């Protein structure tokens, strides 16, 4: 990666952070737990990196580190989304 590519990535980072702050400062306290577990599931996005790392056909250390990463990231993603859905299903307005 060269310096130019890095700058582009930094742009992405800064802009995404602003979007994040804008979106989340409006979330009502009722939803704080689901927000937390939902965003927790989203942070499992490292699954994308884990798949690439686990990708090679060889049996290098590097590949098996990737497989381990994949296991944990998948757990994080699936568990996070399912538990968030379970919670949000319970939030009901007055009948």
């Amino acid at each position, binding site marked *: *990666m*060269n*310096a130019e*590519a890095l700058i582009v*990535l930094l742009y*992405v980072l800064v802009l*995404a952070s602003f*979007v*994040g*702050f804008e*979106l*989340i*400062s*409006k979330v*009502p*306290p*009722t*939803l*704080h*737990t*689901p*927000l*937390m577990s*939902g965003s927790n*599931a*989203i942070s*499992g*996005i*490292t*699954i*994308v*990196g*884990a*798949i690439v*790392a*686990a*990708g*090679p*056909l060889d049996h*290098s250390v*590097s590949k098996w*580190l990737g*497989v*381990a*990463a*994949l*296991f944990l990231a*998948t*757990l*994080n993603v*699936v*568990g996070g*989304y*399912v*538990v*968030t859905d379970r*919670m*949000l299903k*319970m939030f009901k307005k*007055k009948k």
Partner: protein
Amino acid sequence: MTTDLLIQIAYLVASVLFIMGIKMLGKTSSARKGNTLSAVAMFIAVVATLLNSQVLSFTEIFVTILIASAVGWFAAQRVEMTNMPEMVAIFNGFGGASSVLVAASEYWRQAHEASLTMPVVVAVTVVISILIGAVTFTGSLVAFGKLKGLINGRAITFTGQHALNALLFLAVLAFSVLVVLDPNFELWMIAVLAIALLLGVLTVIPIGGADMPVVISLLNSYSGIAACATGFVLNNQVLIITGALVGASGIILTQIMCKAMNRSLVNVLLGGFGQTGGAAASGGGEEIVVKEVGVEESAMLFDSASSVIIVPGYGMAVAQAQHVVRELTDLLEKRGTSVKFAIHPVAGRMPGHMNVLLAEANIPYDKLIEMDHINDEFANTDICLIIGANDVVNPAARTNPGSPIYGMPVLNADKARTVIVCKRGMAAGYAGIENELFGYPNCLMLFGDAKASMTKVVSELKEMATA
């Protein structure tokens, strides 16, 4: 080439869906859809990644995904709502660990391709990713252990703790610089990893139970930042965007929690709250004399009340009393009594903990009122029922400048005509200070397990209705 372009477009679509999903998570009416949308985004990102030409070992990948999904799904279905903080903590730790492993894998690959000297940019990003990921991992594990009661939940402090942490922090910085200077020398990297793991443990250990909402929010933010750093390692925008979203979300929640306790983040992180404060407060106060009340009398009080505000706290979660509280609510409402719930931002062990528990018990969310919106209503309320909450209703926070919690925003429960406190015993709250509310003339103590007491009150009330 065309496949690569396709992958990039898929990542772009996923990023947009993630942002929309988070936006929808911010409204009760659309939150569930928002969560589904972000799951779809994740699915798209995963499928796109499988198309990557470097991804060849499909057997290992699919088997791993299958097993991990089954475990994750099972755990998520089984967990009790009261144990949600632990669940979030442990998943958070897995996210951090996964960032570490991805970065380590990339590092190993680059360090062992003989022809290659690692570019400085890669070395820097790998170090950051490993550092933050490792702190997230062990920090979350300690938080999990504390919440689950495997480790002493109170603040664990020892002399020289801050000095040790500072020293380790400097050491990790020094080793990080060494890695960047000589990326192919693995020992430096291992040193960074080891110290970061240790730092994760040492920084969470001095933080006590009721400060957990802050810590969990902060670790949540770290896991996002770790994902973000991994994005820099792999030159992958979707990781950076989503990592930044999660990082921002965690930071905002952390700020809200700190504000609700009137403490700075630094103050929370340095830990040890409660030990020092306790001594200062107990010196000035005289013995508090409390008035006890029985279940029968409590039921009679409820019988004649026309408005009730319930203040739930962590004790309600521990006693699993949320369902019987719902029964009480239904019963009172059937008799025309108005019932509302007052929710303090740091009630429970994670942000919004009480809201989830009460939602589980089928209490509509529009009955749960935030502190700022309900505080003026206590004065016009017949009964304020406090279940398992303590520090968040301590009037000393408003009146006693000498109290360690002075200045913390609290619920004005003491203003209600009658206050009934349902509590196991006279033990002090998390802050280790006496609650002068318990000695107020309008305050009655209903000692016992919250679930058992409430069940009895409910059956008494039912009898009164039939008699």
